[in-house]
């Protein structure tokens, strides 16, 4: 016969340990993201470019003392570190660094606007399709299939001819294709969330469909949107640069990293550095967006690592 061991249990004097702070899902994800140094650096790079874009005129006034359109035909193809031109000048004697600063406005502006538009449309379509299912789902998703089946580059070319591309139209053109993928992702996530009891419980306490979708579904699929958004940002920057490079996007004299590359290609044998700087900024932005996207995904779903 085994007698029960006397077990001493340390019962807390108060029924609750003091100051155990309840951390939300978001706070926990943020905590994990902060542990990821590569992700944080990548995020920092993105923030840096955003700040550069926002404060481009200020930075130009403080650092380069140049206007991005000021020509100086007596001082073309100045090498980096020449007086008054930290990164040199281009074929028309315009300050390269100033143009890069303003180019960030185009890339970041189009990048974030396109991501925002694609996420909004995509999430709305995905939520509605996934929540209602049936015919609505079928119609919306077949429409998404059609959108995704269009060869994007031809669409971009057509749109660029139909609408004169500026920052806003170009962002909308890019987003008009990009929302399809996010709609699919969100719908897939909705299908798995929708079948959980709290959705039925929400309906059972009399919540309207709109409340169920916005208050209960959306926060549960938000992580998919955030991850997709940051990965998509890199893609948009790349697409935008490519369109500019092909002359279908933002056209000179407005500087963008893409059309600066086009220019650099023309004068490649005069000055190699002209190709390097916009190339580096594009490369850094896209790399940072991808790394940050991956880090966010790991933060939301630690099991994936």
């Amino acid at each position, binding site marked *: 016969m085994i007698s029960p061991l006397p077990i001493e249990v340390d019962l807390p004097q108060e029924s*609750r340990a003091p100051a155990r702070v*309840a951390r939300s*899902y978001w706070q926990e994800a943020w905590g994990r993201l902060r542990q990821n140094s590569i992700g944080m650096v990548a995020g920092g790079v993105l923030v840096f470019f955003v700040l550069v874009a926002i404060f481009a005129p200020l930075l130009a006034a403080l650092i380069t003392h140049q206007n991005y359109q000021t020509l100086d035909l007596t001082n073309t193809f100045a090498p980096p570190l020449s007086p008054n031109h930290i990164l040199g000048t281009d074929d028309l004697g315009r300050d390269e660094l100033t143009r890069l600063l303003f180019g960030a406005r185009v890339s970041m502006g189009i990048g974030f606007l396109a991501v925002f538009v694609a996420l909004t449309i995509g999430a709305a379509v995905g939520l509605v399709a996934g929540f209602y299912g049936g015919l609505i789902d079928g119609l919306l998703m077949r429409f998404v299939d059609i959108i995704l089946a269009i060869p994007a580059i031809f669409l971009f070319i057509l749109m660029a001819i139909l609408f004169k591309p500026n920052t806003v139209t170009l962002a909308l053109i890019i987003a008009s294709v990009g929302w399809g993928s996010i709609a699919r992702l969100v719908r897939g996530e909705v299908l798995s969330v929708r079948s959980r009891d709290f959705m*039925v*419980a929400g*309906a*059972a*306490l009399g919540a309207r469909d709109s409340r169920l979708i916005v208050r209960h579904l959306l926060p549960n699929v938000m992580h998919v949107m955030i991850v997709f958004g940051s990965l998509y940002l890199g893609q948009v920057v790349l697409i935008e640069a490519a369109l500019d490079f092909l002359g279908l996007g933002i056209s000179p004299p407005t500087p963008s990293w893409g059309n600066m590359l086009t220019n650099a290609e023309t004068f490649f044998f005069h000055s190699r550095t002209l190709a390097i700087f916009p190339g580096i900024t594009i490369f850094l932005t896209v790399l940072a967006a991808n790394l940050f996207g991956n880090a966010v995904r790991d933060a939301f779903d630690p099991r994936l690592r």
Partner: protein
Amino acid sequence: MAETVLEVRNLTTHFKTPEGVVKAVDGVSFELHAGETLGIVGESGSGKSVTALSVMRLVPRPGQIVKGEVRLKNRDLTSLTEAEMQEIRGVSIAMIFQDPMTSLNPVFRVGWQVAEPLFVHQNMDRIRALAEADKMLGRVGIPNPKERARDFPHQFSGGMRQRAMIAMGLTTMPPVLIADEPTTALDVTIQAQILELLRNVNREFGTATILITHNLGVVAGMCKRVIVMYAGKIVESGPTADVFAHPKHPYTWALLKSIPRLDADQRQPLRPIEGIPPDLIDLPSGCSFHPRCPFKIERCKRDTPSLIPVGDTQIAACWVTQSGVELKDA
């Protein structure tokens, strides 16, 4: 007799699937009186949960209420528009679910979720609704409700989540509460606590409760009246004591025989019900239970028995007992 708060008449819910029509609920009628706890028992797939969801009009696709009435205070819920129904749910009828682990939204604080019916139905402002939720969490036995209300569901144990679910159902003081297997996912000690809580709720708030379960012990302890369902139909109903003492349907009889009892002869083997539950698409002819019934007579294969009084207090759908035969061990 107390006033009837909910009356279900000939409720029939079908699921149209490619394989055929699943008759999940097939002509179910019952009444729920004010302040009582009514048990609905039956094995998995007998239509208990679909009956509850039909009352709430929340049957998942492709299910559909084909006919019948659900009368709540002289309104037929089956004929209301979806918008009108949303005003009924959570106000007149609340429902709590089987699995407390998935019944709370993981991204919101518990207090907020308990307060949600107040936001939805009474347009109560945030501070008052949350204070109301704290109070309600306290009443369902959550210690330190003010602090715990700021927790997220994953910080609650299963029993606490079920308490929170019950609190959520009760914030608007609905006259009818449907509890769909509220204790199935909990361990035994917690089950007892939750049942005690439901009993208190029933007493204090006067909420009429429909308790759906497959646990006959729970029914014996909680419910004055019980309904036994088999293959989408009610096969027997009556006062719990009478139904358990003298079952008037062979299915009830067999169910009672198949549970272990502490006071019975230990050497007697348990007797399971032979066979498997019927295919709801292709029900057996006559009485759906006849292929598994030890008492069956010829007539059971041909004609479907109707639910009529057998004995003084019970009703049963069985040709054998209706002809006056007692159900006894063969």
